């Protein structure tokens, strides 16, 4: 019997091409001569009216092929001159606004696209952009949540108070419960903006084929089918005239789920107009100022609890900075407001948020997608309760856990997919025990005392989260066993480094009984699987993994049926091992899957030895139709997976930090993760996802922020100034332990794992730093993240000043 590959640390098949420099990222497509290159004129002002755009000087420049402004868009189609789509409408989003592909009359953030130039190469295109003259009338910029709330100036004239949306959800009566609770606390917290920052930015290549009357588009996206639909609508093409291919993608982390970017429409528009292949590859500064950010929130929390720290009522109000436009709707603040509850039972919960306009880059999901902020709110509250009661922080958490026998557990809220927030499975008490053991929670006080004796101050933090993963609506898969015996698999969602070609091949090899090496997986190509949603919300393994498993099952059923007939055996007596169907117990009676594939497709014409065996004079019962009724030729299986609701993964992180009593330098001494994503398909890949998430979390907690000045200029829009962690900033070793609580919602019992590593970072570092500082600066709360050494230093000064 072949060993099951599910759960094995299988090495990745995609590595071979990446390691040889043979990856095919979007900027590697169409490198042949003749491809034209685009550059974009972007607003240098955060808020201004456009009075005039003069492109005269551009057209004289040799090598320039075209320049487009908003005035030119309608010549493609009327809808091209309309605002970009609002992808996820919501009844509470009463004042949703989206930008135009090229600005019309007004710009609302530094970086907003104004003009689009196509030239022989990027250098000339940028020269041309520099020659465009724009007259602006300056308008007052709104920067930051405080300015947005004050609403002295408005981002959009017709959006009062800068409020795009206000959404409230209630479970029970939190204000009343808090009023009656024996103990009450209030917290005011802030989290600043950060961003995904994949190493590869955005990019799009388009080629219009006049012979086929068809558009081919390569784009670095997290949703091929989404881009395809958007491009077809905007360009007035039939869906069948547009192919979108997502090649290798150099990281996404959420930012590439938003679509269509202006350039994803402008590139194909120019390609069709000019009859040439056109490419746009953004540079790093463009990625900073014209893609998307996330995380910025201000939170006010009121909580009531009993003597054990048990929550009686939780009342959360927060203000979410969504930037200048709302193409991705309310997904991020909805996730914050619902996933905030984590593994706990709040008894009574009220949450209300306002999603606010500012004259800054738009906000769309970044790995974690609102959960880091929610986890931060909840876990800071847990720490505050423990401090108030003088109790162990782990104990306070434990009394609030949903218990293993309470699943499925309905939190009584509506989640980001419009479905009930009902947790499917989990075991939080067991996870806490594992976490405490892994980090050495109970031994920590002794360690702290030992360090204190040396004049060193250390602190420990703990943070717990629950993550809704694998949201719908669906994914599909197609499995084709070729006459060679090779298995070709296609699923429509995209890949940005998660190793889908490997894990999906593991699933197919297991289900079909074929060799792993014989399975080839294609993702994100609308020619191969036109029905798909995308890669976000830690959903790829759950959604496409399940769909692929089901499709492989169908292909297997068909293979067994045909083989049973050929071997004159009962289907139930057959097995497939290493691509060979045989009768159990009599291995001599066998047929390989390639031959079964030949038999599945009755032919008139022979073109090789294999097809000769399938021609009409060789096979089939003359008394029956060559292809049975209700069947199709070919050995294929296709299926879709569409779950009722999300599946809920969970995890706990603990960190030990040291803070320098003099310089406030923050050093990570130990980082521990316990993670439960149900059954693991490939532990090596899951752990890689955790490592990456933790590193991004370290960045978000200690280093990364978007430094906007009051005029709306992003002052640190480069890798020189936006401090992403190098190896020197991440822990030297991350201790990981797994819990496997299978999901009852899908056939594999799996849950998503992609985002988890980053969710508890702000919470866990704030807790550990607060703990470390507690001896010398008692009562000093860490309420603003990220925190740098200089900010910690300033906080000490102001805290000690106030308390002296």
């Amino acid at each position: 019997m072949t060993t099951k590959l599910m759960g094995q640390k299988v090495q990745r098949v995609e590595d071979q091409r990446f390691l040889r420099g043979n990856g095919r990222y979007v900027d590697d497509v169409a490198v042949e001569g003749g491809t034209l290159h685009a550059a974009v004129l972007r607003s240098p002002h955060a808020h201004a009216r456009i009075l005039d755009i003069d492109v005269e000087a551009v057209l004289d420049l040799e090598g320039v092929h075209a320049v487009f402004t908003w005035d030119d868009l309608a010549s493609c189609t009327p809808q091209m001159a309309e605002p970009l789509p609002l992808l996820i409408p919501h009844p509470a989003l009463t004042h949703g606004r989206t930008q135009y592909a090229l600005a019309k009359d007004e710009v609302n953030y530094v970086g907003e696209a104004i003009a689009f130039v196509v030239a022989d190469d990027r250098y000339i295109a940028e020269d041309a952009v520099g020659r465009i003259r724009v007259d602006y009338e300056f308008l007052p910029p709104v920067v930051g949540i405080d300015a947005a709330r004050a609403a002295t100036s408005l981002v959009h004239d017709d959006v009062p108070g800068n409020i795009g949306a206000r959404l409230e959800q209630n479970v029970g009566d939190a204000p009343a419960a808090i009023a009656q609770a024996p103990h009450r606390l209030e917290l005011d917290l802030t989290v600043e903006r950060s961003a995904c920052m994949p190493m590869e930015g955005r990019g799009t290549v388009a080629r219009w084929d006049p012979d086929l009357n068809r558009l081919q588009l390569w784009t670095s996206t997290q949703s091929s089918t989404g881009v395809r639909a958007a491009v077809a609508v905007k360009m007035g093409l039939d869906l069948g005239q547009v192919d979108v291919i997502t090649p290798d993608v150099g990281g996404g982390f959420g930012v590439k789920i938003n679509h269509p970017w202006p350039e994803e429409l402008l590139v194909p528009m120019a390609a069709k107009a000019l009859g040439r292949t056109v490419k746009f590859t953004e540079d790093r500064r463009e990625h900073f100022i014209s893609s998307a950010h996330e995380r910025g929130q201000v939170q006010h929390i009121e909580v009531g609890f009993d003597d054990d720290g048990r929550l009686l009522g939780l009342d959360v109000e927060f203000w979410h900075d969504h930037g200048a436009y709302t193409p991705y709707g309310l997904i991020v603040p909805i996730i914050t407001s619902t996933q905030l509850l984590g593994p706990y039972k709040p008894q009574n919960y009220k949450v209300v948020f306002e999603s606010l306009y500012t004259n800054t880059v738009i906000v769309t999901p970044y790995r974690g997608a609102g959960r880091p902020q929610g986890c931060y709110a909840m876990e800071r509250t847990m720490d505050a309760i423990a401090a108030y009661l003088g109790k162990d922080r782990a104990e306070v958490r434990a009394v609030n856990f949903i218990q293993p026998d309470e699943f499925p557990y309905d939190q009584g809220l509506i989640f980001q997919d419009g479905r009930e927030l009902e947790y499917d499975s989990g075991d939080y008490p067991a996870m806490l025990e594992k976490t405490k053991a892994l980090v050495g929670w109970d031994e920590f006080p002794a360690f702290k005392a030992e360090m204190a004796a040396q004049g060193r101050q250390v602190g420990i933090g703990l943070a717990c989260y629950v993550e809704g993963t694998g949201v719908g609506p669906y994914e599909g898969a197609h499995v084709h066993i070729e006459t060679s015996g090779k298995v070709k698999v296609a699923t429509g969602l995209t890949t940005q480094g998660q190793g889908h070609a490997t894990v999906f091949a593991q699933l197919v090899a297991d289900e079909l009984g074929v060799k792993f090496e014989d399975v080839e997986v294609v993702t994100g190509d609308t020619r191969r699987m036109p029905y798909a949603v995308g890669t976000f919300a830690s959903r790829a393994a759950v959604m496409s993994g399940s769909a692929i498993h089901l499709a492989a099952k169908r292909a297997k059923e068909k293979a067994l049926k045909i083989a049973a007939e050929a071997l004159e055996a009962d289907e139930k007596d057959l097995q497939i091992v290493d691509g060979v169907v045989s009768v159990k117990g009599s291995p001599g009676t066998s047929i390989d899957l390639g031959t079964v594939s030949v038999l599945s497709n009755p032919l008139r014409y022979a073109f090789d030895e294999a097809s000769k065996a399938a021609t009409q004079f060789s096979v089939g019962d003359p008394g029956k139709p060559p292809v049975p009724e209700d069947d199709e030729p070919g050995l294929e299986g296709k299926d879709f997976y569409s779950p009722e609701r999300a599946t809920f993964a969970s995890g706990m992180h603990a960190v030990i930090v040291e803070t320098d009593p003099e310089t406030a330098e923050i050093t990570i001494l130990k980082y521990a993760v316990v993670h439960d994503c149900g059954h693991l398909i490939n532990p090596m890949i899951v752990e890689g996802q955790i490592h990456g998430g933790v590193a991004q979390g370290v960045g978000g907690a200690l280093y990364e922020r978007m430094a906007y000045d009051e005029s709306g200029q992003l002052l640190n829009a480069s890798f020189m100034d936006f401090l992403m962690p190098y190896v020197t900033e991440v822990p030297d070793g991350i201790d990981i332990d797994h819990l496997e609580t299978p999901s009852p919602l899908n056939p594999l019992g799996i849950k998503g794992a992609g985002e988890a590593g980053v969710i508890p970072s702000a919470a866990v570092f704030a807790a550990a730093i607060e703990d470390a500082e507690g001896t010398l600066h008692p009562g000093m709360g860490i309420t603003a993240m990220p925190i740098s050494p200089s900010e910690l230093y300033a906080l000490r000064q102001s805290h000690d000043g106030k308390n002296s």
Partner: protein
Amino acid sequence: MEELHDVRLSVNGHTHEIRVPARRLLSDALRHDLRLTGTHVGCEHGVCGACTILVDGAPTRACLMFAVSAQGSEITTVEGLTRPDGSLGPVQQAFMECHGLQCGFCTPGFLTTITAGLRDNPTPTHDEARDMVAGNLCRCTGYQNIVKAVERAAEIAGEEAAS
């Protein structure tokens, strides 16, 4: 019309003649003129290290160098790290074994950097292995497995030298 310059580039043991403007970056010349797209551009200001190549053996940011300046130098790109028989070199092999890459975009810069690093220090300590990759950014892996790959590559190269 921009003035063009004839440049002879020696890359991975092959000589290429190209005509480029003085301002053409070496990274663009490698990618667009020579179509060696394994060298990736992540920031265009020398911070991320994705475009790192070896110029006369020394790790160099291809985005901070003009193509015309590379005349007369021996350049090695990621495509040149594979063994003559087509199999993976020790650093590449170690990355595969240790899961040292995810999206693969930063990987070529790490591979070239480590190749030079291990040539200068074939038996790095753990801290030296971390130092060796401290100038390159990766957004996927959290560096844990990249450091392991440095140590494993040293091991593979050591075993080969011994055999």
